[in-house]
């Protein structure tokens, strides 16, 4: 997962300052030492002030952790670590096949990588956050850090209990497919293990603030004719024509843009399809960066490598409404980056490099810092 900080528009900034005088203050101020115990650790992303957001799908919670890692205490080192899965397993006292790495985020202030990990085989396996500074791996001690948590709103559970002696534990869970911090809000995309839902939650941060969380349904249109719910797999924020947007990849493959200003209570958002990422392919992660004065987006895919897209093209795209002959699409053009193969995780490390987790031929995972293409 990536840092998803938007360049703040002057108007947006002045509004947020006038509405929330605390916004300019240290965002960790309201957090407390909570001896945080993660039930699970899914997607992770950084906000400002070294705050790490961790999705805990099993606990139906999003945690904000004040890592205290603000880049002031140690020299920045590019992350490079071979066989990170073996090393995490060793540090957690188990075998490499008994850990699962869920996600990765780089702290933009320090360049330190944070990985969310499950230690064990089952759903209830304990979760941990592991940090990598340069080639040094450590387990983050959550018991001594300040944190704040937000319970994801309750599910449509129809008054879950069914009577004396037969109380049925709800089997519903909401997987979190991605989360990010954008303009003072934590955005959480998810998917239910029961109904075909497509909710995107927008939670004001700090969590104890006066803003209200908003949940919207995301839709997809095809041929201007069919409308369906469309769960989001991964997203990133950027400015299109000066306006803040989400660029989201749907589970059914289209890449869409959604204006952030449309995320309002009760809204049903239909993304504008700007590309289709291809059959038998899963988008895994996206980052936005600037090179030689131009802005680009990198999309890591499960089977189609790394795609590089100019955000100017996203801006210009009229949106795909019709299929062209041969089954292709008139989506935004993209370049596939050669040499970036086997990439499972991607985040921006700094202005000129990206951190990737790559699967080797031997089946283990390496962390590598690569120059942005």
């Amino acid at each position, binding site marked *: 997962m990536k840092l998803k900080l938007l360049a703040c528009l002057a108007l947006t900034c002045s509004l947020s300052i006038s509405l929330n005088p605390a916004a300019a203050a240290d965002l960790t101020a309201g957090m407390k030492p909570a001896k945080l115990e993660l039930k699970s650790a899914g997607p992770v992303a950084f906000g400002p002030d070294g705050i790490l957001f961790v999705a805990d799908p099993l606990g139906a919670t999003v945690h904000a952790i004040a890592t205290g890692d603000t880049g002031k205490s140690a020299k920045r080192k590019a992350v490079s670590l071979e066989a990170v899965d073996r090393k995490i397993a*060793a540090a957690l006292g188990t075998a490499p096949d008994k850990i699962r790495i869920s996600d990765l985020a780089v702290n933009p202030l320090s360049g330190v990588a944070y990985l969310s990990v499950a230690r064990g085989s089952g759903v209830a396996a304990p979760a941990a956050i592991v940090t990598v500074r340069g080639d040094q791996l450590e387990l983050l001690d959550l018991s001594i850090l300040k944190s704040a948590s937000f319970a994801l709103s309750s599910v449509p559970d*129809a008054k879950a209990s*069914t009577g004396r002696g037969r109380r049925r534990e709800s089997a519903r869970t909401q997987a979190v497919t991605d989360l990010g911090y954008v303009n003072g809000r934590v955005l959480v995309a998810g998917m239910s293990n029961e109904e075909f839902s497509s909710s995107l939650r927008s939670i004001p941060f700090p969590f104890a603030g006066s803003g209200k969380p908003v949940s919207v349904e995301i839709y997809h249109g095809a041929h201007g*004719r*069919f409308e369906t719910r469309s769960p989001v797999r991964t997203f990133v924020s950027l400015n299109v024509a000066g306006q803040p947007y989400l660029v989201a990849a749907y589970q059914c493959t289209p890449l869409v843009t959604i204006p952030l200003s449309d995320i309002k209570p009760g809204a049903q958002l239909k993304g504008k399809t700007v590309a289709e990422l291809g059959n038998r392919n899963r988008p895994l992660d996206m980052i936005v960066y600037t090179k030689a004065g131009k802005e680009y987006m990198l999309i890591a895919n499960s089977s189609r490598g790394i795609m590089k897209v100019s955000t100017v093209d996203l801006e210009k795209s009229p949106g795909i409404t019709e299929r062209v002959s041969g*089954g292709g699409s008139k989506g935004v053009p993209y370049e596939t980056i050669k040499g970036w193969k086997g990439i499972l995780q991607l985040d921006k490390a700094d202005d000129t490099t990206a951190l990737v987790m790559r699967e080797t031929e031997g089946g283990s995972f390496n962390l590598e810092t690569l120059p942005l293409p």
Partner: protein
Amino acid sequence: MKSAAVRFVPGAVVLALLCGCVQPVREDICPVRIDLVASEDGALHFEVSGFAAARVDEASLRESFRVYTIFDKRSAGEGLPAIAGSYVFGEGVLRFRPRFPLEAGLGYSARLYSSSGRFEETRFDIPRKELERGTIVAAVYPSVDVLPENLLKFYIHFSAPMSVGMAYENTRLLDSNGKVVKYPFLELDEELWDPRGRRLTIFIDPGRIKQGVLPNEVVGPVFKEGESYTLEISDHWKDAAGARLRSSFRKSFRVSEADRQSPLPAAWKLSAPEAESREPLKLAFAAPLDHALLHRLLWVENAAGERVAGEVRVEAGERGWSLRPDTSWRPGEYRLMIFSTLEDLAGNGIDKPFEVDVFEQVRERVESKTVSRAFTIRPRQR
């Protein structure tokens, strides 16, 4: 309990300890002991004891003791980080408690380092657990053997918690010739388990169900009307304890035409029992509905809006639902409440079909979150 351990102590050992405030490194404090001990809560921890020096500097001692996981007995700990854990020192004993329980079947190297980097090592092997292959696929829903072409999902129920991360390599779909159907499922890194790890939801790739989306237009739908298929679950899938399933599982079914209509609660047959009995209220649906959602999104309220507590059953083939109340029915007006996201097998909700054809909308969408159907429990006929 002292653990049964493989133990060896190298000959020349130098231990870096600062005794007192400014004393130099002492080399006369050996031998020390390193043991693996069970705590009161059953978790294993390491104990370092037998220091000859009267006073031991705790901070230095913590820095000197490390435990490594052994993957390869010849190069134990080489290039690997030490196990994370916490230290407590008291009564001449340093206790190191690993952050996570030690793993059956693995070895651990406990080391006391000197200032020169040499170390005394004691190795401990945690006995391997015998694994019994007892876990089975208990059920797969939908349970009917005729499924719509635009089927949205399967629920696979297991008899015990399962390993996560093995779902898609162990689940496959075969056509009537036994040929594997390629990429039929929505493969999510976040596998969709219930909180106990005993039920997995597998969605059919929505890109191959939705009309007008590239995968469906290029590769086509997963299922074809009139054809037969088999969902196969491999016995290589491991349960949460690490044991393989006792046996593979197969569910064969035939495919009928696509279903693009929302379920209509008004068309359900409702059989209300008489008052003063605990006979169940019964519903019969026109077509099967989603097994999981039937347990969660249907309920009954009395005239006061109170939920009627009782035992819910989903009937065979997910074509029916019943509620047996905890206490006898009282005469009066009731409402069957239906949450609007209740779906059929193709993901068509009460509130809207899986896909809305905006050119040919069959009926207006339901905007409220629940719909209800009134019924009366009549006084018992004497």
